[in-house]
């Protein structure tokens, strides 16, 4: 049963006040008590759950909306499947077999009697709704009507029983062989806010949104199988029927995921760092990855340490790290107090895996887990803040990554290559690769982030949610300094932990800590699909050679063009003056203040600030030395600049030298390749 929570809050008390519950970190207004049994042969779940929900809004509601995510893979007419096909990904092509689809069937749903409120069967009012696209074939959200409204502060309990057919993995949940990863599996309430339910349908490019609560879950799986789940294990009971029930409880989270397999090997570790609470780490690995144990643990600890010190401590005291089975598709996903990484049998250190994904998913404990924004509508908040942060952690702990290519891709399949090769010398920095500039570039003008994420073009959604946000946050870091951005993000974390912040909340806290109104910046990077590109349009430096009539003693006096034969000798001499003219252009639609740095032959540097607003600006300098090079935004503050090559100009440049160097190497490959063509004749 649900942990006891005071049923009805007295009127006049702040509904977000959790002081009545000892030790509560969150409102705990959506609490789930679930009993679930896995049938591994039939690949079915059978569940019974009691949801205790408290209305923490100021408006009453007489209806409830539940997500039933697994109905997204019930057939190809669901909104998820339609969108997946539309974006051209189509997970497993046309080869979805009968056993691969999934569904959830709610068998009973009752309102439990409490106080004056009588018991009521809600099943008759159950109907599927499609608030986002009106797709009548979509069964990912259902609504039930309550006999009487739930008033502000009032609680109700709803009991459901259901069966679910487990999918062959879609969206990181499902089975492969006897490996099961079970996420977003039970009928789950949406979020009641602003007088209505935020419970969008399941979309192929977006994730989830739920209220915080207590999860008390009993999971029965075959005896001898390892179970990993959200929360801490409180009990394990052998049912003497070949199954064992694992009882897990977790407070102050907004979801619950679990996994089971006979193959996992378990490693226990503990995270300790000065000033931060300790965390027990439980790592469940595939046996063939056991040698990568320490890499997974190091990355998890790195995230707990740096996110903890930058934003706020990880409060749960335990975390479960899952290394999913090969090909299961379950890797790289976050759930409360549990996350999945993902590695390969052969995976040399240096290219970012599995450290990067481990840091990212561990980091989601902070951005998503603790700060629980609406991922349907504002996915960029958690994904963007987290991408920015994971790249920062990786850089701090492991440095640059290097280019990697996976070889031996079985032709005609969706598989990735089995044999990685790292290319030393082809290094990739945090600022560009870590933040995902190459993923952002093709999506730059696709959608404004302010639009609800599930309405983004699904093919370009991640480039915006993850990479654009990471890039503009890093741009802010370079503009304001980490000493200002870090406290701002920490304040955002502190103010909105165990709550549902919105974009404006982030903007206001960053502006507050920056000591300036950053509306001009947020309007462009969040409110609009502005793209940025500053470029040196032209750069010239020449000796000033007066010619024509000049005033001498108040009268026009003719001065002829100086002789040019000994111009070389004159060069650099004190009396020759050079005029250097540089035109900087704004090629993008976005405006950002930039520095223009001019470097002269005598080593002198002149830096000019430009507000970057006009379409172009001329910079003129007169010096005794010639201009050597000029760069707009020399520190690359504006990481959203789509073309940085055009940001600099070297007056005496020899582009043929790098071209010769690299094209001659390309030619060696090309000759080899031509030899391969000749093999066939």
């Amino acid at each position, binding site marked *: 049963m649900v942990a006891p929570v005071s049923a009805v809050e007295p009127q006049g008390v702040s509904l977000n006040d959790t002081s009545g519950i000892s030790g509560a970190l969150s409102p705990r207004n959506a609490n789930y008590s679930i009993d679930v049994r896995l049938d591994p042969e039939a690949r079915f779940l059978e569940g019974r759950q009691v949801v205790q929900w408290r209305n923490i809004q100021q408006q009453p509601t007489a209806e409830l909306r539940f997500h039933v995510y697994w109905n997204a893979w019930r057939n190809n007419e669901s909104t998820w499947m339609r969108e997946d096909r539309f974006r051209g990904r189509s997970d497993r092509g046309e*080869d979805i077999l009968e056993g691969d689809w999934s569904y959830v069937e709610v068998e009973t749903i009752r309102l439990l009697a409490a106080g004056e409120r009588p018991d009521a069967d809600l099943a008759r009012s159950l109907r599927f709704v499609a608030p986002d696209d009106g797709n009548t074939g979509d069964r990912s959200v259902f609504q039930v009507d309550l006999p009487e409204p739930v008033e502000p502060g009032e609680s109700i309990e709803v009991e459901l029983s259901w069966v679910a057919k487990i999918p062959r993995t879609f969206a990181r949940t499902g089975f*492969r*062989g*006897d*490996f099961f990863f079970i996420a977003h599996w039970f009928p789950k309430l949406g979020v009641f806010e602003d007088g209505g339910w935020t419970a969008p349908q399941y979309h192929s490019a977006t994730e989830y949104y739920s209220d915080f609560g207590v999860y008390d879950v009993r999971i029965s799986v075959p005896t001898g199988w390892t179970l990993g789940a959200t929360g801490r294990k409180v009990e394990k009971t052998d049912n003497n029927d070949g199954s064992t029930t694992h009882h897990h409880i977790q407070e102050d989270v907004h979801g619950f995921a679990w996994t089971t397999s006979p*193959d996992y090997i378990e490693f226990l570790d503990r995270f300790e760092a000065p000033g931060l609470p300790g965390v027990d780490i439980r790592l469940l690995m595939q046996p*063939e990855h056991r040698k990568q144990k320490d890499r997974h643990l190091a990355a998890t600890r790195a995230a707990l340490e740096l996110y903890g010190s930058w934003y706020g401590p990880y409060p749960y005291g335990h975390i479960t790290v899952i290394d999913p*089975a*090969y*090909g299961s598709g379950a890797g790289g996903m976050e759930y409360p107090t549990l996350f999945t990484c993902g590695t*390969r*049998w052969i995976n040399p250190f240096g290219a970012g895996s599995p450290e990067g994904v481990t840091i990212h998913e561990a980091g989601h404990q902070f951005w998503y887990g603790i700060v629980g924004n609406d991922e349907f509508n504002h996915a960029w908040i958690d994904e963007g803040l987290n991408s920015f942060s994971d790249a920062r952690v990786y850089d701090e702990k492991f440095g640059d990554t290097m*280019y990697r*290519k996976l070889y*031996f*891709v*079985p*032709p*005609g*399949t969706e598989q990735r290559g*089995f044999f990685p090769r790292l*290319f*030393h*010398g*082809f*290094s990739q*920095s945090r600022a560009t690769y870590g933040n995902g500039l*190459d993923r952002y570039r*093709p999506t730059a003008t696709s959608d404004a982030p302010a639009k609800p994420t599930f309405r983004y073009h699904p093919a370009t959604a991640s480039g915006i949610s993850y990479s654009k946000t990471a890039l503009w946050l890093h741009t802010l870091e370079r503009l304001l300094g980490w000493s200002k951005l870090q406290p701002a993000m920490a304040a955002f974390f502190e103010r909105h932990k165990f709550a549902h912040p919105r974009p404006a909340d982030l903007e206001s806290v960053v502006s507050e800590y920056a000591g300036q109104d950053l509306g001009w910046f947020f309007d462009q990077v969040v409110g609009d699909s502005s793209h940025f590109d500053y470029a040196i349009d032209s750069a010239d430096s020449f000796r000033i050679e007066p010619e024509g009539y000049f005033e001498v003693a108040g009268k026009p006096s003719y001065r002829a063009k100086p002789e040019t034969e000994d111009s070389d000798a004159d060069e650099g001499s004190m009396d020759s003056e050079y005029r250097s003219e540089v035109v900087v252009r704004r090629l993008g639609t976005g405006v950002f203040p930039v520095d223009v740095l001019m470097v002269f032959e005598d080593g002198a540097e002149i830096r000019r600030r430009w507000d970057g607003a006009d379409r172009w600006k001329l910079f003129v300098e007169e010096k005794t030395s010639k201009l050597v090079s000029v760069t707009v935004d020399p520190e690359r503050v504006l990481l959203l600049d*789509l*073309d*940085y*090559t*055009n940001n600099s*100009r*070297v007056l005496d*440049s020899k*582009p*043929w*030298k*790098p*071209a010769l*160097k690299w*094209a*001659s*190497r*390309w030619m*060696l*490959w*090309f*000759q*080899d*390749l*031509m*030899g*391969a*063509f*000749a*093999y066939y*004749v």
Partner: protein
Amino acid sequence: MYSRKLGIAEAARSGLTATIAAPRLLAVVWLAGVLLALPIAAMVATAVASSVGKSAVGQSLEQGFDMDWHGEFAHQARGLEKSFTPSVLVGGGWLDTLDVWWSGEIFSLGPEIVAFGILFAFLWILITGGILAHFNRPGRRFSLGSFLADGGRLCLRFLRLALLSAPLYYGLFRLARWLFPWIERITVDKTVERTVLAYNLAGVAVIVALLITVKMVFDYAKIAVVVEERRSAILAVLRGFRFVLRRPLRTYGMVVLFSVLGAVLLLIYTLVAPGTGPASFAGVTLVFLLGQLFLLARLSLRLGLLAGELALFRDAL
């Protein structure tokens, strides 16, 4: 009455000896490849130069590589430029070539690359006639005139052979595109990567064995055309097929032997091939020459195998 049959090692040695004894032949064949590749490489050089322009990026590209620049370049790359990726820029990109060679993915590299590949294949048909005729000639004195004349004389017959082999290769790569998805389906519930890899490697073994077989049959068919002055392509293929079928140990053995030699060569080259440096003109030239030396050595092995196969064929007459 019965003389001892030529062994694999002897045939291989005689093939290699014949190749080394014909430096001018090697040079001509090598040069043909270089001459075709040069203008195409010049196009890529122009693309790189125009992308770099007068940017300071040129300096970082000269010293090493610049992945940030490459990201921008790749975003705008069209046609041939798309093949300009880090993996082909070190060590001659042989792993990239190997990866597309066995799988037939080479034909998915883009229309420009495939068009040049087909052009080069035609050139190779012309060259092969000259090579085999040279190795078949008593005394083996090389002259460019007879090399070209032989190539011209045999090219139509070799072209017919190539047209006969094309559907076989096509079928083979279709088979691969059926086989690997099938393997994916039968391993769909395997949770251990090594197991899945083992299945796939078995698939590769099948495809590569068939690839080698087709190649060998048609090599011996060409040899039969040259040695026996055959005109019928179909009969020559049958002759090649029978030849391989009756001497599987020696025919396959020789291919394996030359593959091992090729692998050793690759290993050496991989060890000495530089990374992203050096920047100087002399250094760049040296890297290029080293690469050419490797390609020349590869070519010697290729010609050596042909000459060795020819020796095996003549020995059986």
